């Protein structure tokens, strides 16, 4: 199944990679590297367009309407059109804004999401890099987006932006702790921090996925991951940082044109990354779901791993969208209460009890 050394630096040993290695033995390192980055860039630019369309469609159907229908088949090209419009719009800078920081800020969340994308295991051999400390890397790099939001709020010279950025900073730093503790739980269970290894540790039937392991604790951990990552993504019901009815546009109030588009796109890629991590940690990543019936298992195995990865990720994304279009927004102090007085203690208890379960060998 897995003949390659597990600590291989570039797990891109798929058909295309091998072909290039065969054709250009000398330059393969550079060509393969270029191809991976190029394809990742392509993915990063197409994903938000699709996700925005999906969000609008999901929202529309939750609200008993159709959503975009005019541009392309069922409005598929609507967000492309919107993106093009944003690119051609004039970029305005408010008077008194800090020019350098104001234009630097939108690039940071986009960069952060791109960097996390590099370690997502899309398939067995479809991953740009698989560092041994992948979990730590993901946590560290994703914090860059907080910086972008804080800088945006600070540099905009607008009180609404500042309030939004401060809320967002407090929120994301708080929920990062919960998120880190849940990732720590997974690292503790699998004994590795490499994302590829974490996926491979769930090899077997569907019951080997971490969500179903450790009687109920896995499920609780998944629910807590969903709550903290929703907050981390600044999505409703925890979207206090851009709370439209309170702060007009939050940290993005003063942004227009392409710099707004950068924030907006990063938000959606971030959602994909977060859902992808949930898939990796809890839902068996690129592994096909095996239910123990020979014929069906074989059929599922026939479907390539990256399709399974995308299917599971979009399932999680659908959950995020479901939250967003169902709940009203929580208040800023309620959100902090939720994190510091409920989620964090619950996380610690979960971590301890999982450790106990692990020591007793009750992994199931």
């Amino acid at each position, binding site marked *: 199944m897995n003949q390659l050394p597990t600590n291989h630096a570039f797990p891109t040993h798929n058909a295309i990679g091998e072909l290039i290695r065969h054709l250009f033995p000398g330059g393969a390192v550079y060509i393969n590297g270029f191809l991976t980055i190029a394809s990742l860039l392509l993915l990063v630019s197409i994903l938000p367009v699709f996700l925005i369309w999906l969000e609008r469609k999901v929202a529309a159907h939750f609200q008993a309407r159709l959503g975009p229908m005019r541009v392309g088949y069922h409005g598929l090209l609507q967000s492309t059109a919107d993106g093009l419009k944003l690119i051609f719009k004039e970029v305005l800078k408010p008077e008194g804004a800090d020019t350098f920081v104001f234009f630097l800020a939108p690039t940071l969340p986009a960069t952060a999401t791109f960097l996390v994308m590099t370690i997502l295991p899309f398939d067995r051999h479809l991953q740009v890099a698989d560092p041994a400390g992948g979990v730590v890397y993901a946590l560290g790099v994703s914090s860059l987006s907080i910086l972008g939001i804080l800088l945006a709020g600070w540099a905009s010279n607008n009180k609404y932006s500042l309030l939004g950025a401060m809320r967002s900073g407090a929120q994301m730093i708080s929920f990062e702790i919960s998120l880190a503790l849940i990732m720590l739980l997974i690292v503790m269970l699998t004994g590795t921090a490499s994302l590829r290894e974490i996926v491979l540790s769930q090899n077997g039937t569907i019951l080997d996925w971490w969500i179903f392991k450790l009687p109920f604790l896995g499920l609780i951990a998944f629910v807590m991951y969903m709550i903290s990552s929703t907050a981390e993504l600044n999505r409703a*019901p925890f979207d206090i940082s851009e709370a439209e*009815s309170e702060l007009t546009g939050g940290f993005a109030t003063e942004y227009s044109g392409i710099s707004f588009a950068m924030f907006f796109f990063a938000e959606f890629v971030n959602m994909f990354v977060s859902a992808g991590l949930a898939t990796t940690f809890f839902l068996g990543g690129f592994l096909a779901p095996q239910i123990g019936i020979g014929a069906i298992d074989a059929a599922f195995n026939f479907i390539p791993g990256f399709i399974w990865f995308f299917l599971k990720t979009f399932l999680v994304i659908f959950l995020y969208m479901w939250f967003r279009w169902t709940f*009203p927004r929580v208040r800023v102090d309620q959100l902090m209460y939720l994190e510091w007085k409920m989620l964090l203690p619950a996380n610690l208890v979960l971590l301890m009890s999982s450790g106990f379960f692990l020591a007793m060998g009750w992994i199931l």
Partner: protein
Amino acid sequence: MTAPIRCREDETFVLNLGPQHPATHGVLRVKLTMDGEYVVKAEPVLGYIHRMHEKMAEDRTFAQFMPNTARMDYLHALAYNHGYVLTVERAAGIEVPERAEYIRVITVELNRLTSHLLWWAAFLLDLGGFSPLLYAFDDREQILDLLERVTGSRLTYCYFRFGGVYNDIDDDFITGTRNFIKRLRSRLPRLYHDLVTKNIILIKRLKDIGFVSKEQCRKYGATGPLLRGSGVQFDIRKNEPYSVYPEFDFDIPVYDEGDCMARYMVRMDEIEQSMRIIEQALDKLPDGPVRAKVPKILKPAAGDYYAAVEAARGSFGCRLVCNGDKSPYRLKLRSPTFSNLSLFGEVAEGMLLADALAFMGSLDLVIPEIDR
């Protein structure tokens, strides 16, 4: 809200909320002095949509002023029609046929439903829930279609005439209204209460937030759901009955808590009561003319006349001073949300910004009505 408020004079900043802001539903401007997320002082600034309706009345005939009434509270325009028409009828001594009175009650209550549904939608939008907006608009749309059939317009109605209404209602309207009530009755518990009212986040956001005492209501002259949410049973329809309201059996919902949740529940219960009134009115609807014979140009005798009606937001009063001419000598309109908004500054002090906006939403402000 548990945190104590420490405001230091030198650490506050002024946040200009509006006149263009998503939560002010129009062109209200609130000057907020903030200490971080806490409101230290809130000062509503009015006048951005002042159109001098009262002055306009002075150089128009009585009938010519009718369309103006719908442009004040555009969400419950028929109640404003009704208030003005009642005053002029009182002044000119016009008798209204009974069928017309019933039609007035039916349409006013239907319009009250649209107003409450829209308030519900916008309030949830203030609280960050988007989907309920569409559900409420779906129901509101049905009423607008019904009202469009008989009144000819969908928002700014000018349907009432001195001595009756413009147009008789037909069987389609009656069956349509009955069907709509059946539909709303089935949707209310499922879409409105199960999904929203019982939602834990909504309860946490509204319970014990924005407390308004009876004394404060009296001090500022607050009326409507705001007053009834603070435990005072006052509704013009019951306390100073007009039109044919005494003939119907309906309750005035009163909640004692005085918080945002109480005001929310008052309005949700009023939806049910309005449906009861409409059903009874449709059952009892008499035959006959819908409009009395009234001269084209009215010249009421000199004097001072007053009539008040219960609009969706509170009591709307209309004081008319006539000097025997074909237009009013002076017309003074008392709009409910002007008084209700006056409370805002006092109550919002010390609140979190999010709570202050939830409180503002629970007041159900319609700015053109405040400014007139």
